[in-house]
Each structure stands twice: as structure tokens, then as C-alpha cells.
């Protein structure tokens, strides 16, 4: 008798597990179909155009193919970040940049050593005025060499921030559309103005205030170290503190407000969504339940696509800011190295100039990272907030 009961229980368990598997499989297939259908309808043409406009280095970091291919790879789990190749790319980029700066470095070194030698022997046959003239000429030659590469660095940072702005203008409407499709009514109304403010207001603030002030700091570094009589160190400090305040305030206020609003709206959406779902689910046993019905599957597919688009955008962001960041880092290192090398042989003014220039350049890194961080936080909030529906 016991054996029969055991066999019966076993049979029931097996049949139950088979049926749930069949249901699960059906649901999975339906979900896959829904995702494929929605992906086909989703308009990612602008993102593809943007991908085409990237440079070869950025493209190689993002990977080949269209944006939809990338989303499909992320969805199917095929997408993997090769950390080895990633770090390899960063190091090769860094050393490539350092190599391009070596000729400038050696020229500055040669000029400064020559100038140092002349200054050492000046008491014997040179007057005070001539020494001043020699210093001026040396300073101008160093300046010429530094400025030629500094302009391209500035241009690259401007282009990069502009490129992040374009990315925002393309990716935010897609993410917001997917959020609206997945039922995030309040979330969309909260994120839409915030995202638009980030791409228009804050980026413009950086273009109009932070970057020009950084240029001003650099110019003041240049002219302030030219003469012993007129020092502009305090002016440089003033502008540095203005820059710090603008970057810090915009970063803190934007991130804090958006996070608080985003989390509140997400929980509101989640509760109202669940309330609506339980209203259907409780009274009609056939329809309710997790991922059983078509309606839930459509919402779930939108959420899954949204998360994949968000991940793709983050990869795109990383690949577009990495090149200028490595450029700035290597340039700053190069300036510090040059300052360290020429300090013993030359007037301390040129060494001071180079080292203060390298601190001025750090504001370029700060502004680039601040914009990228705000974009990253917005994407993360857009991606994570409507997941609470399920």
C-alpha cells in the first residue's frame, strides 16, 4: 500500500514539474517573440547614425555591428566585456599618447638646459637685461611647444562633451519611450524634464562657464609666470574655486534631486501597477500570476529591452570618454615629468608654469567626468526604477 502511495506521489510530482516546465517554456518563447517584435518596431536609426560618426578607436571599443545587434547580444547573454583586451586598449592608447609627446618633451628639455647653461655663466659676460631677454625667449619657445598640443586637447574635450550631449539627445527619448511602454507613468513625467535639463542646461553651463574658465586659468598660468612683478596666483585660485563650486553644485544638486524624485516616482508607479494587477489577478484565477498573461509579457519585454538599451548606452559612453580621458591623463603626466626634469637646471618659473598648467588641465578631466557621471546616473535610474513593477 505504501509503495503505491509513494509511486502516486512521485507521479504527481513528475507531472507537475513537466507541466510547469511546459508553461515556463511557453512563457519564455512568448517573451522572446514579444521582445523580437518590439525590437523590430523600435526606432534606433539615430543611434546607428551616431555609431557611424564615431572614430575607429571608439568603434573598436564599442564593437562591430548596429546598435540593435548589440542589444540582441546583451539580451541573449552573448555580450561579454573582455577585460584583458579593454585594459590592453587603455594601456596601448596611453603609451601611444606618451610617445607622441616625447619629441615635445625632449625639445623643451633641450631648450631649458641651454637656457640654464647660459644663466649659469651670465655673471662673467652677460648683463641683467640680456638674461631677462634670454628667459623671455626660452619661455616663449616652451609656450609655443606646449600650446600646440594643448589646443588639440581642448578641442578633443569639447568634441567629447558635445558627443555625450548628442548621445543623451538620442538615448533619452528611446529609454523614456520604453519606460512609458512599460507603464512608468509618473516616472516618465519626472525623468523627462530632468533628462532634458541635463542635456541642455547643465551641458550648456559647462560649455559656457566651466570650460571657458579652465581656458582662463591656463592663460593666467601662462602670463602670470612670465614676470616677477605681476603675479596672478590669487586670480588663478579665484577661478579655480569658481570652477570647483560650479562643478560640485551642478553635480550634487542634479544627482540628489533626480535620485530622490526618481525613487519616489518609481515606488509610486510600482504600487499603482501592482494594485491594478492584483485587481485583475485576484478575481480571475486564470489571468493572474507572474508572467502568465500577455499583458505582463508585453510590459516585461519593454522593461528588458529598456535595460539592454541602457547597458548599450553605458558601453557607448565609456568608449566615447575613454580616449580624451587617457589623452588628458598622459598630457598631465607629461607636464609634471617635464617640470620635474627641468627644475634643477633652470629658472623655477618655467617649472612652476608647467606644474600649474597640469593642475589647470585637471579641470578638463573634472568637467568631462562630471558630465559623464550625471549621464551615467540618469541612465542607471531610468534602467533600475521601473524594474520594481514586477
Amino acid at each position, binding site marked *: 500500500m505504501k509503495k503505491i502511495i509513494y509511486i502516486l506521489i512521485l507521479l504527481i510530482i513528475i507531472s507537475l514539474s513537466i507541466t510547469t516546465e511546459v508553461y515556463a517554456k511557453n512563457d519564455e518563447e512568448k517573451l522572446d517573440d514579444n521582445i523580437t517584435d518590439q525590437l523590430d518596431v523600435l526606432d534606433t536609426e539615430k543611434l546607428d547614425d551616431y555609431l557611424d560618426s564615431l572614430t575607429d578607436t571608439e568603434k573598436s571599443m564599442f564593437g562591430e555591428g548596429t546598435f540593435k545587434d548589440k542589444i540582441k547580444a546583451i539580451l541573449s547573454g552573448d555580450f561579454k566585456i573582455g577585460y584583458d583586451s579593454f585594459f590592453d586598449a587603455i594601456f596601448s592608447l596611453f603609451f601611444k599618447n606618451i610617445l607622441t609627446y616625447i619629441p615635445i618633451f625632449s625639445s623643451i628639455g633641450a631648450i631649458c638646459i641651454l637656457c640654464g647653461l647660459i644663466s649659469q655663466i651670465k655673471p662673467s659676460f652677460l648683463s641683467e637685461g640680456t638674461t631677462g631677454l634670454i628667459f623671455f625667449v626660452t619661455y616663449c619657445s616652451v609656450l609655443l611647444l606646449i600650446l600646440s598640443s594643448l589646443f588639440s586637447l581642448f578641442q578633443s574635450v569639447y568634441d567629447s562633451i558635445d558627443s555625450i550631449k548628442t548621445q543623451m539627445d538620442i538615448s533619452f527619448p528611446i529609454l523614456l519611450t520604453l519606460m512609458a511602454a512599460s507603464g512608468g507613468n509618473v516616472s516618465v513625467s519626472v525623468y523627462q524634464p530632468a533628462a532634458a535639463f541635463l542635456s541642455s542646461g547643465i551641458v550648456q553651463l559647462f560649455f559656457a562657464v566651466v570650460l571657458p574658465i579652465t581656458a582662463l586659468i591656463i592663460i593666467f598660468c601662462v602670463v602670470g609666470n*612670465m614676470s616677477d612683478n605681476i603675479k596672478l596666483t590669487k586670480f588663478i585660485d579665484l577661478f579655480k574655486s569658481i570652477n570647483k563650486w560650479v562643478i560640485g553644485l551642478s553635480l550634487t544638486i542634479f544627482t540628489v534631486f533626480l535620485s530622490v524624485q526618481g525613487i519616489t516616482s518609481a515606488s509610486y508607479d510600482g504600487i499603482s501597477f501592482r494594485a491594478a494587477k492584483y485587481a485583475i489577478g485576484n478575481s480571475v484565477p486564470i489571468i493572474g500570476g507572474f508572467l502568465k498573461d500577455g499583458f505582463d509579457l508585453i510590459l516585461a519585454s519593454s522593461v528588458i529591452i529598456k535595460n539592454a538599451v541602457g547597458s548599450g548606452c553605458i558601453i557607448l559612453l565609456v568608449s566615447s570618454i575613454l580616449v580624451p580621458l587617457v589623452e588628458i591623463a598622459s598630457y598631465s603626466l607629461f607636464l609634471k615629468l617635464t617640470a620635474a626634469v627641468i627644475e634643477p637646471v633652470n629658472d623655477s618659473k618655467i617649472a612652476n608654469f608647467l606644474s600649474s598648467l597640469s593642475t589647470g588641465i585637471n579641470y578638463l578631466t573634472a568637467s568631462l567626468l562630471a558630465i559623464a557621471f550625471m549621464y551615467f546616473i540618469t541612465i542607471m535610474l531610468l534602467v533600475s526604477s521601473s524594474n520594481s513593477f514586477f
Partner: protein
Amino acid sequence: MNNWIISVAAIIILTVVAGMILPEGKTNKLIKSIFSIICLFVLIMPIQYLSNRNFAITDVLSIKNEYTLDESFLYYTSSEKALSLQTECAELFKSNGITEVDVQIIFNSEKIVFTIEKIYVNIKNIVILENYQHININVVISNLLVDNFNIDAEQVIIYE
């Protein structure tokens, strides 16, 4: 701002050049101090400019408030949701002993979030259980939809 930067740079370069050209002595010191005073005036020039002006952030920034969403995608997902809800309606009626009714859900395409505008129920070929014979079937259908889809009774339109 550009003019100011150029003025500052020019006055400092001029001071340095003057210091180099002029011979050592009292004249040199006097000219250097004159240049320092000029430099001071040039440096504080923007303060006077800022105090004369009512500065508004909108002068520098043009802030936009919203993005245009992909309406065709939203329409597609809404129509898919409407289709799935139609199937759910049929299941709902079936579980309550009502079959062969044709349900059509009309959604509000102007709103970004899916909202049901009207539910049309065609009961021309309706098949019902025996115990519904003496009950107004329209009321039963309307109540079922109102209870389960969080809508008002006016939104349900039953026709033959």
C-alpha cells in the same frame, strides 16, 4: 570676456618687454609701477561690468523641457496590450459562463501610458448558461468588466 583676457595678457607681456628694454634705474622702476597700476585697472574691469547688468541665467542657457517620445512604438505596444486584454476579456467571460462574445478594446492613443478609453462588446452570437436566462446579461457583462479592468460603466458599450 575675450577682450578682457586679451587685455590682461597684452598688458603683462608689455610690462615684461618694457622691463627688458628700459635701462636699469629709477625710470625702469617708475614705468613698472605704472604698468602694475594699469594692470590692476584692467583686471578689475569686469567687476564694474557685472554690477551694471541684470544678469539672468537664461541669457547664457536655453533650456528645453522635454523630449519627443517615439509615438509609433508607443502605439504599437498599446495596440499589443489592447489585443492581449481582449483575449483576457474572452477568458474572463468564459470563466463566468459567457461565450461567443466579441470584445474590442479602444485605447487612448494621445496619452503616453496605456489607458482604456472604451470597451465594445458585441453580443450578437452570445451563448450563456441557463441560470443567466432571467438576468439582464448586459449588466452582468458590464459589472464583470468594471470590476476587473478598473473602468467606469459608461466606458463599456454593449451592442448587437
